[in-house]
């Protein structure tokens, strides 16, 4: 297993290099740094000096790939590619346009993001699986049909509606919790409840329906018939046999998103004013702060690859037949 993990991690390196090259191409080759500056400073009435100054302050005044003016290894390192893109491999994200360290921002904003994302994920998973099990238990009855119809309707509603509707109903009409904002420590509870509830309701349609399909596929198999023939109750069959065997398809979709929880949710955080990584990204997109977006793209793909490796490891935990070689 150790050998497998090492191989997977080594395999991740070319992928990350690919991500890095792709973002580099997107941010520096499709549009030159000059275009970016004009975007930032406005197209009209901007002097060449101002452009040069802006570029120099942020280190965009270097050549893209090869610095022919420098000597030795500096020909490669004193370039935009080396300093802005390749440095991300050691998680050195540089500075945002307003001069703050991106790495520092990421570490402070991770907490609020997790405070929302983790409970949403855990409670959500529990709710979705329970709802799906309930539908499976009452399959082909009126309850199941109503449940599926409800799922289809729920998944046809825009995620924006849940957020706006939740804010209107719970905060504005009933005054139960504040509409948006965040505070540290125990105070955070009243701020995080609404985003979590909204997040769970928003995902209930597609997730429960998906889990129901998985359970139904399992329940048609031979071992289930055997279990019933032994005289086990339907509940017992469902919980001890079907649920366990459905773990593999469930884990495939679930484990991969766990590391990405760190990134938070763009929509939820910006609507509820949570100072997490999601709202950080949205602010960067709106302010067209390319260095932050670049950093988040890289961080996101690193976390995704970690998620893929974790998925493989989780298979060995739930299914002893799986051996990683």
């Amino acid at each position, binding site marked *: 297993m150790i050998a497998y993990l090492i191989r997977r991690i080594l395999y991740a390196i*070319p*992928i990350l290099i*690919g*991500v890095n090259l*792709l*973002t580099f191409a*997107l*941010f520096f080759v*499709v*549009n030159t740094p000059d*275009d*970016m500056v*004009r*975007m930032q400073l406005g*197209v009209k009435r901007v002097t060449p000096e101002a452009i040069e100054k802006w570029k120099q302050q942020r280190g965009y005044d270097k050549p893209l790939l090869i610095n022919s003016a420098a000597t030795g290894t500096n020909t490669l390192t004193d370039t935009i590619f080396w300093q802005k893109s390749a440095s991300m491999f050691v998680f050195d994200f540089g500075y945002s346009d307003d001069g703050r360290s991106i790495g520092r921002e990421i570490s402070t904003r991770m907490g609020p993001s997790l405070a929302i994302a983790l409970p949403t994920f855990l409670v959500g998973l529990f709710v979705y699986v329970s709802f799906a099990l309930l539908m499976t238990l009452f399959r082909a009855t009126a309850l199941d049909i109503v449940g599926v119809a409800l799922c*289809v*309707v729920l*998944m*046809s*509603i*825009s*995620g*924006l*509606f849940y957020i*706006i509707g939740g*804010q*209107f109903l719970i905060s*504005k009409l009933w005054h139960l919790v504040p509409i948006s904002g965040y505070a540290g420590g125990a105070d955070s509870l009243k701020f995080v409840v609404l985003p979590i509830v909204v997040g769970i309701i928003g995902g209930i349609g597609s997730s429960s329906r998906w889990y129901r399909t998985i359970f139904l596929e399992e329940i048609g198999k031979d071992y289930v018939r055997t279990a019933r023939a032994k005289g086990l109750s339907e509940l017992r069959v469902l919980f001890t046999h079907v649920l366990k065997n459905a773990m593999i398809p469930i884990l495939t979709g679930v484990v991969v998103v766990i590391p*990405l929880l760190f*990134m938070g949710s*763009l*929509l939820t955080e*910006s609507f509820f004013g949570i100072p997490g990584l999601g709202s950080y*990204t*949205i602010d960067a*997109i*709106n302010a*067209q702060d*390319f260095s932050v*977006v*670049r950093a*988040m*793209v890289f961080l*996101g*793909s690193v976390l*995704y*690859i970690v998620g893929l490796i974790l998925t493989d490891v989780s298979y060995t935990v739930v299914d002893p037949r799986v051996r990683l070689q």
Partner: protein
Amino acid sequence: MNFIPVILWSDALVFLLIAACIVATVYVRKREHLLLPWRRVAQSSMAMVSLLVLSLFLLVGLLDTLHFRVALPQTNNGEKVYSPEVLSVFDKVVEPLRTHTEKTYSSPFALTLYAKESITDAQGNIVREYPRLRFGGAHLADEVARDVDVMKRAATGALMGALVGGLVAWVVRRRFAQTAVFVTILVASIIIGAVANLATAYHVLGTDKVGQDVLYLSLKSIRTGLIIGTVTTLVTLPLALFLGVAAGYFRGWVDDVIQYVYTVLSSIPSVLLIAAAVLMMQVTIDTHPEWFTTSASRADLRLVFLCLILGMTSWTGLCRLLRGETLKLREMEYIQAAQSFGVSSMRILTRHIMPNVMHIILIALVMDFSGLVLAEAVLSYVGVGVDPSMISFGTMINGARLEMGREPMVWWALASAFSFMLVLVLAANLFADAVRDAFDPRLNRTETK
């Protein structure tokens, strides 16, 4: 001619899509084995009802795709000058909706504006009053007569609608056996009749911040949603099909390279990749203003780019499915027989493999549609969606969201955008389910007709 047809990029893609649909229909109609799954779709009343609803949306979207520019009265040395405003046939059909703009917000069926203004009354005194709308209920003397008038207009409209709907249902009675279809035709035509009759005299769904009719905005948004939902898959379909099938069939280094490419693309969280690509596209568009003759063509190119970008991030899933299916197919006896006869790889791919993965493509196409329509609204909110000047569900929601805090609340624009989206996406989801059930070979069916 006092107008000039305009074909925007997205229009051209829509025409291409229609042409492809027609060719496919002609091809399928002649072949019983390809027609069979469609017969199964036609048997499901749920599918037919949702298809009916979808085709109403499609009709609006198609009319809205035929663009033109009207000639202006003045000429430039004998040469005709055309208005910079690009209109569509749909705009002409609903001309009153488009031109009846008020000053600012007004609620549905209102006679007055949402906010008080200073008005000089008959005696010359300045009073704070809700001013009357220019068009909404302008034929009425006062508020009292409104409810009766609304009822009367709705009833006549509904009656007309019912008559037309009944006629349509009678004409198509042999084609469709399901009662649900007839009920839908009737209900839809009654609603359309009533709304159409009311819309000439009132703002049925109110007006927005700059006084545009919300019903008009909602109907215009349909085209944007449909284009995002269909063109996105269309533009990247060749890529996914070609790469997926090639990876599965040739294996070896081809497979390695293609797998590498799609692992890289799919390892970036899609919202971030879209955001990064859209930001870059924005810079390119902003630095090349000379590319565009009208603001509509600029907004349109942005829409097409958005489709491309969305497609670039979503083709990987389809590519992976196609690769897996091809891996399975290439071990089948008939492929091996073709190989041993010395049939060229190209021919095997086009004659034997591609027809057998078509069901996967079709299922992916219909399943992706609703997700893309919903994604547009979210992306426009994040600021990386369609051009702010383009009417879409996302821009409508985005504009209305800021008015949530007002007292009394401006709810109608939000409610309309969400309801139109819900109907469209729900119909698409139900239709997609029916298509998947009919085409998925994994479901074993006993009835073979």
